[in-house]
């Protein structure tokens, strides 16, 4: 195992919507097998950063690398399966939980095993009986769990999690945290986790990125997030604790 191997690297990445600049000069790496948490006020560009890494959008300028190769050298479908994303709003396709869990494989013309589906439900803390439930009847938190399980079906090398616990109660939140840590340890999956919960960012993360106004302000060891020397980071951290 190589220490500190970079799995995703961004180099001077800019992104704009028309004339509005959304991300400015983002340079940094996510390390293989580590958990990186991303914090920052809403509108900072965190979700946009994820969509860039998953290939849903492309930078206006700058380069993004996955396993040392520019992401635009990969087939978009291949990249997206390897860099899986659980989107901020857990969109469901209409139908049952089963249909949603099967989706990543049906897209490849494959079939999900029922046993596997049940395992995944258990993994995210949902009972087997949910399998045939219509997603219309699920709570926000339950959808979020289905969304995570669905992303796991592709067995991504990198898992991008966008505020996946914000709609969950405390118990579910801890369950999901434990799950993600386990996935990270067992399958050595690289985790990048956007959260507005500083406590979570610190306790789960190996490293943390602080983003504000489209800029990457600081990359810091999560345990040192509260002691950052950077003034904006200090202010943000304080504001959040108050």
């Amino acid at each position, binding site marked *: 195992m190589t220490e500190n191997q970079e799995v995703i690297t961004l180099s001077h990445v800019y992104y704009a919507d028309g004339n509005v600049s959304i991300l400015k000069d983002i340079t940094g790496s996510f390390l293989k097998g580590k958990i990186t948490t991303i914090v920052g006020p809403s509108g900072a560009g965190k979700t946009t950063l994820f969509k860039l890494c998953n290939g849903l959008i492309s930078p206006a300028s700058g380069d993004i690398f996955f396993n040392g190769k520019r992401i635009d050298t990969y087939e978009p479908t291949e990249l997206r399966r390897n860099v899986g994303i659980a989107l901020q709003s857990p969109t469901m*396709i209409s139908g049952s939980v089963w249909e949603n869990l099967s989706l*990543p494989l049906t897209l490849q013309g494959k079939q999900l095993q029922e046993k596997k589906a049940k395992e995944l439900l258990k993994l995210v803390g949902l009972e087997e009986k949910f399998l045939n439930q219509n997603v219309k009847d699920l709570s926000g938190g339950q959808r979020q769990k289905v969304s995570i399980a669905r992303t796991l079906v592709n067995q991504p090398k990198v898992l991008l999690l966008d505020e996946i616990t914000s709609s969950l109660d405390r118990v579910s939140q801890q369950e999901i945290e434990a799950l993600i840590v386990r996935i990270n340890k067992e399958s050595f999956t690289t985790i990048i986790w956007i959260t507005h919960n500083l406590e979570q960012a610190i306790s789960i993360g190996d490293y943390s990125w602080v983003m504000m106004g489209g800029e990457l302000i600081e990359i810091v060891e999560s345990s040192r997030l509260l002691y950052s020397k950077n003034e904006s980071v200090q202010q943000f951290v304080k504001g959040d604790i108050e």
Partner: protein
Amino acid sequence: MSYATLALSLVFVLIPILLSKTLKLGLEKDTIIATIRSIVQLLIVGMILKFVFTSKSFIFIVLMLLLMISAATQNARKKGKAIKGMTWKLVVTFVAVEVLTQSILIGFHIIRPTAQYIIPISGMVVGNSMVLAILFLNRFTAEVEARQDETELILSLGGTPKQAIQASLISSIKASTIPTIESQKTIGLVQLPGMMSGQIIAGADPVQAVQFQLLILFLLLTTAVVTSIMIGFLSYPALFNKRMQMMKQKEI
């Protein structure tokens, strides 16, 4: 019918104008414009048709068809402005539908290959094709907008653009063709189709008029379904780029 009797039929224009004036509906101007336009347009068409029919030249038939297709394209393209290359996609579709239907009609000797048949039937085919294209594009732009999250989800999981847009595509194809199918269920119960009525008034045998009307109905089924599917499959790729990303939608 003589021009004198036609002149008398203007009574039917006077009635709404008078009513509009008395009740201050403000419809007079539009009624008059509509009347003049319909007189001029139809008379010109009639004269052109007479000329084309007597000349028996194939070139004129083709010219008429091209005219119809370009008018239909002109009308429908406004609805698909957000989609790149809409004009030629419409032209290709209209031409394909026209060629398909006429080949079957003429190939199976259902109609004779003369202007009297080809032109009016093409008018109905292209006209309906245009309406279907407009219905489809209206619905499709709305569906794409409403299902943006779903499209993004499927792309994010490694789906192709076609898989990501499929739900919008299928539901728009269905929604746009259903009126054609539904209207055939009640046809004849409430009102007689215009073409059939015209034939009967002009002295044709009603059963024959019905047979011809049925032919047209079936023809329009093909027209509707083929138009929606073709426009759909030609349009959706323009919503994505080479990197399988959703293109930003301009205001539609």
